[in-house]
């Protein structure tokens, strides 16, 4: 029997009250976590991920050291209570490994690894809560965590998911919608408009693909604004703290500032 929830009703509303092209509420928290060099918690709708970044630092394992650039390691951990059904996932779970590999390959061309030969950058992704759009939340949080660690990147990476209900495209799907619709995740670099990732797990008609692809690109720009605002306000707060004479808790403040300035210049 078909589900009794309408994905998109005749009034143009989705089951949670959003319209087709509306993204869920995003909350970005860039505050310090322990000894991490950079970290970010993104709450996108009811999906919540925490990404911490360590490095760049000297590579530990010789076998994995590259002499001309840094190595990026991604480790992912899905907490058992993150879904409605309590289930412990092994770290070696195929799906988790695949997600980690996807994140790694998304960021390798964006992070300027050549600046740090023979070193490594560790990214830890913790999934606290899941309600659709897991991959795009992880990617967005990783972007911000890398920025807050002061690691130079050529651009932001902004990801968003999109699906199609009959012939109407929808953006930023919840679990309920993901279970019902063919969908994909697209990650763009907003400044150049380049796409660093397209992930499809379901079959999608090629005409619909083009629609969603274009839409997701546009949605990336909207996300970019939101992410940039979070970075700026964090930097402003840190600068404000310095001016009142308090030392910022750990390094990275000026890295922030530089990044923001550079960012502003480059956006011309």
């Amino acid at each position, binding site marked *: 029997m*078909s589900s*009794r929830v309408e994905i998109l009703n*005749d*009034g143009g*509303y989705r*089951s*949670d*009250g*959003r319209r*087709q*092209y*509306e*993204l*869920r*509420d*995003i*909350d970005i928290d860039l505050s310090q976590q322990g000894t991490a060099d950079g970290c970010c918690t993104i709450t996108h*709708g*009811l999906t919540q991920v925490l990404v911490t970044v360590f490095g760049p630092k000297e590579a530990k394992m010789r076998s994995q050291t590259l002499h001309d650039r840094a190595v990026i390691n991604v480790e992912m951990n899905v907490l058992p209570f993150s879904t*409605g*059904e309590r289930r412990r996932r092994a770290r070696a779970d195929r799906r988790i490994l695949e997600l980690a590999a996807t994140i790694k390959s998304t960021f390798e061309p964006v992070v300027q690894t050549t600046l740090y030969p023979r070193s490594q950058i560790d990214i830890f992704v913790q999934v606290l*809560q899941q*309600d659709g759009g897991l991959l795009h939340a992880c990617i967005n949080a990783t972007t911000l965590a890398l920025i807050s660690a002061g690691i130079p990147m050529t651009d932001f990476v902004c990801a968003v998911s999109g699906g*199609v209900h*009959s*012939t109407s495209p929808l*953006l930023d799907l*919840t679990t*309920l919608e993901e279970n019902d619709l063919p969908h994909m995740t697209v990650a763009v670099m907003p400044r150049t408009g380049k796409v660093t990732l397209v992930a499809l797990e379901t*079959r999608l*008609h*090629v*005409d*619909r693909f083009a629609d969603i692809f274009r*839409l997701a690109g*546009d*949605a990336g*720009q*909207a*996300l970019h604004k*939101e992410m940039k605002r979070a970075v700026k306000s964090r930097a402003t707060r840190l600068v404000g703290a310095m001016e009142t004479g308090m030392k910022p808790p750990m390094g990275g403040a000026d890295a922030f500032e530089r990044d923001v300035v550079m960012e502003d210049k480059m956006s011309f």
Partner: protein
Amino acid sequence: MVDITIRKRPRTEAVLTQRKFFKKTARGKVIKVLRERYLRDDVGCGIDGCSVCHDLRDFSLPSSGSSAHAQYPNGHFVLPDTNVFLAQMDLMESDLFNPPIILLQTVMEEVRHRSLPLYNRLKALIRAEDKRIWVFYNEYRSETAVIREEGESPNDRNDRGIRMATAWYKTHISLARPPVRGQPSRPSPTVVLLSDDVANRQKAEKEGLVSISVRKYVEALQDTSKLLDLLSAPGSDEVEPTRVASARQALYPDYLPMSTLGAGVKSGQLHQGHFNANQYNYLEGNVPVAAFDKPILLIGRENMNRAVQGDVVAVEVFSESEWKAPADEVVEQETTLRNDDADESEEENDDEEAIAERKVLQAERARREASVRQPTGRVVGIIKRNWRSYVCHIDSTSLTSSNTTSLSQQTVFATPVSRLLPRIRLRTRQAPALLGQKILVTIDRWDSTSRYPEGHFVRALGKVESKEAEQESLLLEFDIPYRPFGKAILDCLPPEGDHWVVPPKTADNPVWRDREDLRDLIICSIDPPGCQDIDDALHARTLPNGNIEAGVHIADVSHFVHPDNPMDSEAAARGTTVYLVDKRIDMLPALLGTNLCSLRPHVERLAFSVIWELTPEADIVNVRFTKSVIASKSAFTYEEAQIRKDDPKLDDDLTKSIRLLNSLAQKLKANRMAAGALNLASPEVKIQLDSSESSDPIDVEQKELRETNSLVEEFMLLANISVARKIEEAFPQTAVLRRHLPPPRSNFEKLQDILQKRKGLTLDVSSSRALADSLDKCLDPNEPAFNTLVRIMATRCMLSAEYFCSGSVARDTFGHYGLASSIYTHFTSPIRRYADVLVHRQLSAAIGYSSLHATLHSKSHVERVLDVVNRRHRMAQMAGRASVEFYVGLALKSRGKGKATTEEAFVIRTFRNGLAVYVSKLGIEGLVTFKRETQFDPDAYTMTVPAASPEAVGTTIAVFDKVTVEIEVEKDKNTQRGRVKMTLRSPVDSSTL
């Protein structure tokens, strides 16, 4: 670029914007579900000219409401509660009832949870052009969203939400009409909460809202008496207690609660299935269920426990010692319950009627050997009612006053036209005026204290036996959509109208893109006489290499009907064109069906062609599919084509082409028969109409079949099979195919037994091939029609063919049993069947002509569409048959000029007190009943009518015997329902029996 935004959700108000609940999965795991809700301020009120919601463009409510109600002089809007749609849908659908309606999302969702058919009617209502309904998404608007409070039932929460929305509208309207300086402030229209829930009304009034019951509301409208009849029978939840309700004793056992039913069905203690009433015996019904080979038999009123034809019921099976054989007696409701009083205030317990019924049931049932026994059981609950509106007649004897000027309310019986339904009790003030009319009645409820279901009058269809009333009642009875096409649909037609022509062939014309120019081919069409929607044409010619090129050209309907527009949706909902004797209800607007798509002769038309290269032995060398432009050279009738083919003097290309096609068709048919295809029969008669205008039948004749019928048929089958292979290969998940499952062997048991016992013939049903062979051997040298009769009876043992989506069933069940083909579809009649339109789209995509629309990639969408189409096809077939029956009746009347007609007939079934006979010349079945005792031998399928004098030997009549019957159409005295009455003339005269 569309506007992409990020919606903000205040996290502090999580109670309002988040919902947490627990859900149990099918495996029994409990899952915690967390959902968000985004509340917004841009949900419009839908009132024209609203100054607060001005940035929203959609409006459907007039700015000052409606002033048609005496109680609300300032104008008003109606805001109905859920119970209004659940109980009073007929009122809401009436043309006379059209106040501006505010429909809340809460109400829509509640209706959807309670009943999907009602929800679908509600959706149709929202779309209807003459209704003014605005859907207000109150759950998404920040001011009107409600959350369930601690200890509050979902019902109470919804009621509160409805009241909250009413209050919001009240303030919103006053905000939206700010007082204009210098002008007297205009009074604001009232928002009226329409509800039959007394508690909700009381609470609303306490909160300062205006509310009213449906009855009170309707009473103050114009046309009130017509509208009042549309109201459903008041339920027991009404505040005023009904006079004797409490004192009355239950006639039926109560239903078990829904949760118990669900658990019982799951654990296998109860069985779920559709209830089928027995058309010969109203005190018996059966429910086919998966657990037993034979359907579960329900004997008697208490065991059927208020189930109505088509309901999904839960049945408890009795222990095996109580299993019985089905009744062998004809029991008619009218005769047994003739004297029952419609007014329910009478005691309904141990009156005469109940005793009469019991006698019928107890009548010594010589329950036979174990092999014919069926499981018996009783209905313990209804899982889903499938009530709809029924066409009925008012029973004149149930009227207390037939004075036509009387407007007093009377309780009367309505007898449904269908023999499968119980009488319905209804209250009306129009009873005398409705006598002798066909009327539409809806069942509202059936209490355990009432012998009959209670319903209400919907509308009158017209005088009994007037063609309009009979026709409309037929369409309603089989649920056939027959409204004229609306404007939105007609707007999808080409703007040139009937001036549309195939554009001249140029390199850059999009119509000619990838189209083959076949205008020079010698193509012709062969159809029944008077055919206007010609969807197929053929050609054949010899190739230089000695092989033959044959082509089937089908109207290119998908060129005109684009996916997902209003015309396409309407065609999908109609599913098929319905052919009645004197009327055709088109699936597509006539401009397409009978003109632009019809492959008429001497004009250029767009086509979708299947072209084979065949060896002279009719083996396929290769096949190709192409969009094309053709110009048919001639449109033949079957008869003309036959004459032309047989005329030795003719030797032109067209004649040669027909001869070539015919010789190929004969070989194709031989191959098919060798593979085990069945040659089935169904009663086919043709009604001769006087002229197209008067449509008075003159006579009935049997359809004649010519060689050319078979010619066309063979090529259509070949085209369908070739196309089916192609689309299945291209779209293995969503191809639209057609299959015919092999019938379960038990279906044939009875027929096999009769044939064995009466004629000493055996029927081998092990495969379609074996069945075809043994059917060929079922011959009676003295009786050529016997073979046809057996074929008709065998056909009834089979399952019906159905459309399906290739990804939804196992690959090894694709086969078509009747045609003995491993794969099959419908491609050749896109003008009149919707499945063919889908197949055209898929084939077009498979050959790369166009891309496939997204909906045809979705398995669930294809399944949904095909479900509708399958149902429509069944209904259309039954309606067609019923229409023929009606005209046979008329023809009999006009033929006999008041006298009865005498015809030969075959006995097809024997009962304790009657015979079912089949009149092959008229294609109708009838019942002969005896009032006198007869000797009945169920095992030998015979009955013996005792002779008048005790010493003479009685006359024995058996199944397959040929008898002579007198047929007349008589009207039931009470209900005016016309029925065919048959009396036996030979071997014995039954009129005195």
